[in-house]
């Protein structure tokens, strides 16, 4: 194929706002995944079949480009570990896009949900305990929108902060309310009202940039996280659980664990930092140990932040 030949456009539904697209700028890395993705989108393959084909394809993709650069910079990959890391990360990024396509498709939503493993009944009992308000702290790791899709299925009194593009996702879930909090300065107060009624509030700690920001170290970089959610937990004295969906092989598991409360008597900034740090540590571990769960690569290593923390 000559350089002048038209390039195949990567189809996407909800945008690649975080720079993932540029990671696949090399044609050799795009086309095998696009072909599989299109077959799944058309319904020629079930999602589980597409993910398995993608796994085989990943094994033949040569590590290179921005994704490999990112892994070297953020994780300090040893040369011997690069090939396996790259294949898993490459698979995870494409698998995540395929999952997102399907879970937002009216026709194929149920097919997407079949790859999510059901968590323990004890977790469901905890989340459904009548009148037990709680904050669920998510993060942008693992398959996009999987945790939210699973939560919507649980028929909880849910208020979730989402990006504007995702806010229509819960259209059929009468119990849930999805809001784009970025455009509402009273959004945190509305979340407080919801929690006071015994509701469940779900938001990503690395999501809405509301309130003051605290710089947290992730991998060899950093992320500015909003203090809005810890501020809410502190003022209402509510329990928090970290809830994220993760790839485990070709399936998705729901990982939900209580976040240890920050020590009493800390001043507000120290309390917020301790709360965020308690959420950060297991997420950082996920990013270090399971490359398929890495997303938003530029986000974790934004230039200005790297400069600030001396990288």
């Amino acid at each position, binding site marked *: 194929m000559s350089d002048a030949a038209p390039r195949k456009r990567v189809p996407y539904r909800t945008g690649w706002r975080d720079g993932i697209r540029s990671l696949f700028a090399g044609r050799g890395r795009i086309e095998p995944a696009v072909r599989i993705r299109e077959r799944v989108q058309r319904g020629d393959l079930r999602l589980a079949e597409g993910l398995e084909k993608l796994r085989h394809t990943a094994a033949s993709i040569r590590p290179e480009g921005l994704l490999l650069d990112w892994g070297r910079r953020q994780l300090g990959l040893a040369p011997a570990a690069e090939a396996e890391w790259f294949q898993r990360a490459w698979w995870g990024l494409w698998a995540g896009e395929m999952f997102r396509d399907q879970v937002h498709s009216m026709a194929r939503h149920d097919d997407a949900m079949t790859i999510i493993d059901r968590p323990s009944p004890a977790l469901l009992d905890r989340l459904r305990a009548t009148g037990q308000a709680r904050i669920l702290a998510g993060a942008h790791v693992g398959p996009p929108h999987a945790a939210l899709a699973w939560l919507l299925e649980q028929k909880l009194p849910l208020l979730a902060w989402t990006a504007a593009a995702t806010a229509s996702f819960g259209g059929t879930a009468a119990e849930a309310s999805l809001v784009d909090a970025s455009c509402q*300065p009273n959004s945190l107060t509305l979340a407080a009202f919801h929690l006071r009624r015994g509701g469940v509030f779900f938001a990503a700690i690395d999501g809405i940039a509301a309130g003051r920001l605290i710089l947290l170290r992730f991998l060899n970089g950093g992320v500015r996280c909003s203090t809005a959610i810890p501020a809410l937990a502190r003022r209402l004295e509510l329990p928090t659980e970290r809830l994220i969906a993760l790839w485990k092989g070709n399936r998705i598991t729901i990982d939900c664990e209580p976040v240890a409360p920050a020590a009493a008597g800390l001043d507000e900034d120290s309390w917020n930092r301790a709360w965020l740090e308690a959420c950060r540590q297991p997420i950082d571990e996920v990013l270090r140990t399971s490359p398929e769960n890495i997303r938003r690569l530029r986000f974790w290593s934004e230039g200005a932040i790297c400069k600030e923390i001396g990288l």
Partner: protein
Amino acid sequence: MEQRSPTAAAVFAILCRHVAAGGTVTEDATLFDAGVGLDSIGFLDVVLEIEEAVGIRLGEEDLTEEVLATVGSFVAHVERRRAAVRP
């Protein structure tokens, strides 16, 4: 100059404690942005402190665009809510 009611005075005092650097607390100032300059945490603090000081419980229905348009409209609404719970 018209004297403020105890409720209005309490709300003004709370807003003055939370005003952002360079912000202003006047009847026609907005609560957010260039007015009082509250951010989302600041506004939550204002609401929780008003509930405590004035003895009312606010909810979603109290946070309409009309109510939140200016300091004056917000204070007037809190006064109405307070009046409604008086014996």
